């Protein structure tokens, strides 16, 4: 290809049909986005319109890794306490998979004190004294259900709606549908507080079949959220900018051979974003300018809460900077036995006492801080987990996985605070009545972001795909 014809070619692809279609900014991405592959010069992250006015600008997705027992936290079941030690009555197993029946499942209770809080009278156990003070900000879903499998698989479903890798995570859909509100930061950030990436890994913030540019960016815990943020010692900023310009040029020239290749295009963008992040990212996560009072609010002055508190304080700073979706995975603790996260198969008492302590103050702090800054109305907080835990015991002192009925909660903009949606049976094993599956949660979150989950679509392999697969109902009862 001669230089002239190459230039022509670039011109055509960037201003041709595809380019125009994309610049038409289809709300929720629209169906024409596959043509956008040809339009390398159009910014895939430019802000896009919503289907209806958004209630919130940002989502903080608090994933409690390992699956807490909400029977120890929110779902007060006097009958469970009464019946503890007895075989679970058959009536409660109705409809459960064959394997559960006939098992040795004795009901189990830990030694909790339960109280009602706030005007809403929501129940909290003694494990969450700080969060309990914010009872009236929360909307509980006590009838959450999902598909129970290994943690990895159910976490994948929680984030992407499928049990197999390949679908985009909720954050990726949001970034795709709405674009970025801050060109200097990724619109979708993952925070965690462990040395290594959270359980299940990057497929949980993957862009799946969406263009690669929409995947989440993971920030490391500790003072350096991102390694290699500083330029090589002897390189000045202007020099690096010069190099970057050359890089973009070389990549574009060569990229003309592969006009449909979104991965190569995403790589060009990744360098541009990286360069801006050199400045914006350290500032975004730098907590030194936060006041002592704010730090104390998040528990930064105590060892047990410091690490998670820092993560949540960072989340708030990212909200302030327009990041759309912040996925926070709770970190591990050194607890005797095999499970370091919420996965209390053994000694759930010690496990949950520790983990509750780790998250209670920081989450309460986050709610208070967002409120005092006037950000609570434009932020959605989702407290979620891959599944819950059984009412019957395991290993004598623990609980097994329960995908049939567990509690999650939402707070913030557009949420009917102080309400409870759904319930479980008398022993807290299965949801009864209306339930909320992960798809419904996704639909509800999208709704609050101003997106109709049925119309947030992407054409993949000739199919119109959406975040909720073929499911999903907005839980209207949760909306203000």
């Amino acid at each position, binding site marked *: 290809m001669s230089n002239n014809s190459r230039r022509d070619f670039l011109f055509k692809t960037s201003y041709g049909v595809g380019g125009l279609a994309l610049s038409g900014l289809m709300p929720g991405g629209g169906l024409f986005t596959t043509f956008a592959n040809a339009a390398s010069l159009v910014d895939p992250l430019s802000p896009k319109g919503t289907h209806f006015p958004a209630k919130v600008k940002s989502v903080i997705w608090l994933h409690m890794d390992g699956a807490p027992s909400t029977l120890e936290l929110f779902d007060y079941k006097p009958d469970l306490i009464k019946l503890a030690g007895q075989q679970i009555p058959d009536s409660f197993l109705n409809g459960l*998979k064959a394997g559960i029946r006939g098992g040795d499942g004795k009901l189990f209770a830990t030694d909790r004190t339960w109280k009602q809080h706030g005007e809403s009278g929501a129940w909290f156990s003694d494990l969450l004294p700080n969060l309990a003070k914010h009872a009236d900000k929360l909307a509980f879903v006590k009838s959450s259900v999902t598909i129970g499998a290994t943690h990895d698989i159910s976490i994948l479903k929680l984030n992407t709606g499928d049990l197999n890798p390949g679908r985009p995570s909720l954050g990726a859909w949001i970034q795709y549908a709405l674009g970025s509100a801050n060109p200097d930061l990724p619109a979708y950030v993952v925070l965690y507080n462990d040395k290594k990436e959270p359980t299940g890994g990057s497929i949980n913030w993957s862009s799946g079949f969406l263009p690669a540019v929409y995947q989440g960016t993971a920030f490391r815990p500790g003072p350096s959220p991102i390694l290699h943020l500083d330029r090589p010692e002897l390189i000045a900023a202007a020099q690096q900018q010069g190099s970057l310009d050359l890089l973009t040029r070389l990549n574009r020239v060569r990229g003309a051979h592969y006009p449909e290749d979104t991965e190569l295009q995403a790589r060009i963008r990744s360098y541009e974003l990286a360069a801006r992040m050199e400045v914006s990212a350290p500032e975004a996560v730098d907590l030194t300018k936060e006041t002592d009072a704010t730090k104390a609010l998040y528990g930064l002055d105590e060892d047990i809460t410091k690490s998670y508190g820092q993560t949540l304080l960072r989340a708030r700073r990212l909200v302030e900077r327009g990041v759309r979706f912040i996925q926070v995975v709770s970190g591990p603790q050194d607890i005797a036995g095999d499970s370091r996260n919420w996965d209390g198969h053994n000694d759930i008492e010690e496990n949950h006492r520790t983990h509750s302590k780790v998250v209670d103050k920081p989450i309460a702090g986050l709610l208070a801080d967002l409120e005092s800054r006037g950000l609570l109305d434009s932020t959605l907080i989702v407290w979620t987990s891959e599944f819950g835990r059984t009412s019957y015991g395991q290993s004598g002192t623990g609980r097994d996985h329960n995908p049939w009925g567990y509690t999650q909660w939402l707070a913030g903009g557009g949420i009917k605070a102080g309400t409870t949606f759904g319930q479980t049976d008398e022993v807290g094993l299965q949801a009864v009545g209306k339930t909320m*599956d992960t798809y419904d949660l996704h639909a509800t979150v999208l709704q609050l972001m101003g997106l109709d989950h*049925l119309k947030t679509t992407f*054409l993949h392999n000739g*199919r*119109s795909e959406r975040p909720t697969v073929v499911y999903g109902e907005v839980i209207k009862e949760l909306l203000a």
Partner: protein
Amino acid sequence: MSKFLVSLFVYLALTGSVVAALTEIEEDFMQDIEDIQKSMTSNISLQDAATAKSEAVELEAMFKDVEEFYVKKGDAADAVDWSKESRGYLVAISKALEAKNFDAASQSAVSLAKTCKACHKIYKSKD
């Protein structure tokens, strides 16, 4: 009669594959339902009324089979109800598509998917 049964079982035991075929058909069939349902959902979203409708009609017929199966099987009143409910949604989808009301069709498709899930919770993994 009983002689036949013995020979059938011997045959099944010997071939192995036929045992698998007989018990798996239900799954194959349901897998087909799932595939068509996904395709239909996509076609509703793509506003391809003609294709989506033909799929809805096909699905409705398939659910009729499912319903009959559970009726004959007995002790499965809930499954029969779910099959009926599914057929109801499919009729609604067809009607909505005729009227080019894609939003309504979409909503019914979600309800259909939800019914599938409800039924699978009880019936899918019983081996």
